């Protein structure tokens, strides 16, 4: 599976995703510069964490209007998949590829800590290797990760099973105390209606090796590889 990791000015999880995809997942991967619109030779585009353009207007606001992000609809239409983590999730919301917005953490401080994520939807290319109700451990690292959406949007997300991950206790209880940033309904990650764009605030690339915070994040990559092989895209291209 051919991955592209997008680099905006101010991105910093690019090297980590690149490392995990090439050294741990052992898949071909290249960096994609933010001015690049040509994504034709890729199967999955990763929008990594960081402070694109310094997040100076709003987190992800400038990057959400960059050439590479403008090229994403066409890439998706051609069968591509997009994974946005942390700043990548913020960018996808700013670009309108995912509903809602990410606002300043309720505690008004940056938070870097381990979180437990309840898996709610395993019927996606990003989560098919998981079990519903499974709890994953992945770290967060952000100042603006409080998911916000209008009540009707939240209702629609629920009805269409677009909420993929919720912050929970280690036992899988979705509680207020387990919510690290005040996100609406403890939402940590959502997918678009078509099931081709996943955005999440946690960092799967920081949970991909047992020596570095566990391997739960790897499940997302394994799901992706499985999807590709099974639906034939791998052989098709």
């Amino acid at each position, binding site marked *: 599976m051919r991955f592209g990791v997008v680099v905006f000015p101010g991105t910093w999880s690019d090297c980590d995703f690149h*490392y995990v995809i090439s050294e741990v997942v052992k898949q071909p991967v290249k960096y994609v510069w933010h001015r690049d619109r040509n994504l034709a030779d890729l199967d999955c585009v990763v929008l990594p964490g960081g*402070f694109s*353009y*310094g997040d100076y207007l709003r987190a992800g606001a400038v990057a959400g209007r960059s050439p590479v992000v403008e090229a994403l609809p066409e890439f998706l239409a051609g069968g591509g998949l997009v994974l946005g983590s942390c700043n990548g999730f913020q960018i996808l919301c700013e670009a309108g590829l995912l509903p809602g917005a990410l606002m300043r953490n309720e505690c008004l401080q940056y*938070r870097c800590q381990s979180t437990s994520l309840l898996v709610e939807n395993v019927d996606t290319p990003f989560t098919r290797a998981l079990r519903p109700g499974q709890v994953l451990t992945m770290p967060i690292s952000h*100042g603006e990760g409080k998911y916000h959406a209008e009540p009707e949007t939240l209702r629609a997300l629920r009805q269409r099973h677009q909420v993929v991950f919720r912050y929970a206790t280690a036992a899988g209880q979705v509680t207020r105390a387990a919510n690290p940033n005040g996100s609406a309904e403890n939402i940590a990650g959502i997918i678009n209606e078509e099931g081709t764009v996943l955005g999440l605030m946690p960092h799967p*690339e920081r949970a991909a090796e047992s020596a*570095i915070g566990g391997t739960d994040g790897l499940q997302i990559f394994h799901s992706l590889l499985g999807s590709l092989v099974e639906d034939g895209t791998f052989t098709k291209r």
Partner: protein
Amino acid sequence: MTAEEYDRILQRLGREPSYTELGLFSALWSEHCAYKHSKVFLKRLPQTGPHVLQGPGENAGALDIGDGWAVVFKIESHNHPSFIEPFQGAATGVGGILRDIFTMGARPIAILDSLRFGDPNDPKTRHLIHGVVSGISWYGNCFGCPTVGGEIAFAPEYAGNPLVNVMCVGLVRADRIFRARAEGVGNPVFYVGNKTGRDGIHGATMASATFDEGAEAKRPTVQVGDPFTEKLLLEACLEAMATGAVVGIQDMGAAGLACCTSEMPARSGTGMTVELASVPQREEGMSAYELLLSESQERMLIVAERGREEELRRVFAKWELDAVQIGEVTAGPDLTVRHRGDEVARVPVDALAEAPKYEKPYAAPAWLKELRAFDPLALPAPADYDEALRALMGAPALASKEWAYRQYDQQVGVNTLVLPGSDATVLRVKGTRRAIAVSTDGNGRHVFLDPRRGAAMAVCEAARNVSCAGGRPLGVTDCLNFGSPERPEILWQLAEAVEGLAEACRALELPVVGGNVSLYNETSGLAILPTPVVGVVGLLEDASQLATQWFKAAGHRIALLGPDAVSLGGSEYLWTRHGKQGGALAPLDLELERRVQAAVRAAIGEGLVTAAHDCAEGGIAVALAEACVTGKTAIGCEAALPAGMRADLTLFGEGPSRVVVSVEGGRAREFEALMAESAIPWQWIGATGGARLRLRVGGEMVVDVSVDHLEHAWRNGFERHMA
């Protein structure tokens, strides 16, 4: 600047200096830039060793860690700016040290912060802590370098002079280290990065004076940081270096352009001419004086190879940064500065680099003898040791610092094998089996009572922390924070402390490869506790052979390695319980220290220990309590400590060279054999298990407390002040 210094300039130039020239001398001859009061002492520090690739005198030091890699590191202070404007002061402290690391060609992989404040109950101090921690968080997180360690300690002496010392560690291929040199006559000089404004003018001179009531009025001398631009500058500089077109590079830090344009040619025996009108500016009508002395952040001076200017411009254009040729390297000996064609300064670079060195008189303060003679055992022993231990675990200095470090990204780079919260942080070196362990330490109270031994103990403790993680200490960076050197007693503290650092570094074979001196940490005549902060970097040849400080499971045996000698003099217990600062420190045997650390590393290397923890502030009782509660799940333990001393001294007394380890029962014989070989004093003292911490002294149970209670005290002790 003094009248004598002015006369010296007249002599050197043979004429009156111009206003701009005087500005150059004033900044470059400031204490901050020239170390004129401390240089005489600093040369006593050992600076060489088999691993040293770069010692003091460059932007940072460098050590060879094998497999073709080098670690580049340095610690620096930003104390004065952080008191005036805590958020920007601390943020630009992080920015400055990051640039020192990546000008060497290294990618920064870790930041550690050593912070000192007054009483956290005081609203003003709380404001400073909030500002400093959020400033560090903002800059480091946005830039994308993990903040992985450091310490926060408190004493009233820091209330008017908080300390913000930031250490940065970077990695570079050992044969690709860049230096701050201006070589090759005719080579172009490039200004790259942020535009120049009026911020930070006189920063270096501000940091070379004491504060009085009007300190806040100096706010305009604090720089304003932009971590986003710094991140672009990092990527652009590393990319530019990879082209091979960069000859030398220096960060425009203290004294800005003035510093770079004189220091770089001075190191290379060349000269430089620059045209200030070419400098990218964000304000209109800046004078030559302002352009030379601005401390605007995120700027570098690069000497490039002639004919390869385009390669450099292309890289910086890609990252949307200015890269403008402002001059060229000359045969010397002068720095010639023009502004719109007019010559505004012409000074030999050596004259700027050769600031006067002072050997001022110093003497031990008269009050010290009495303070040291204080006998802590004249105070009553606690009636309730459970409560005494709980209070100590909840003291802000010892309590969990999670409130601060959860605001820092600790993992970006996916190298952090041991997160903050253990004796040392451990980071892997990708593509090798190696890892590095890093720790900072420095106990102002100890140094106040005995500068020489206290400073030596700081080296030992930082190195011991690294050894407790399984790392072999390789080198040191130090930040010497003191009051005004113009007072003989302060200069004596500095002289003694440097001697102590030197003794310990020699004994442990640790070269000091870089650092920083911060003097004049006084407000209205009250000096800080003398605080040398020591950063140690160590190497694990096998990253899988690391240790952490917390107990892993029940049923492991517990051993205490090292001597029995401890003291309540200068201890955290004496301060927290009795509000007293006095007494004598425990003896320090450097040779024994070396052997204990070697024994701990050997035991970790053989996979014999499941936890290793340094006995530091709070003594063995706190060390054991920390081993119980700092892991993911709290585990109790029971230990019997030798009789012969009063129980409070046994439990809470502090002394060097002591380490607690846990060992699986099945490996006890092997461990005993290894300890016998190591020729160090050691003893089994107990075992892990249960939900209580139970300590006997001379057969009598003196502590029997639930680990949950201890954990609660420890988790909330600092955070409750910050809410």
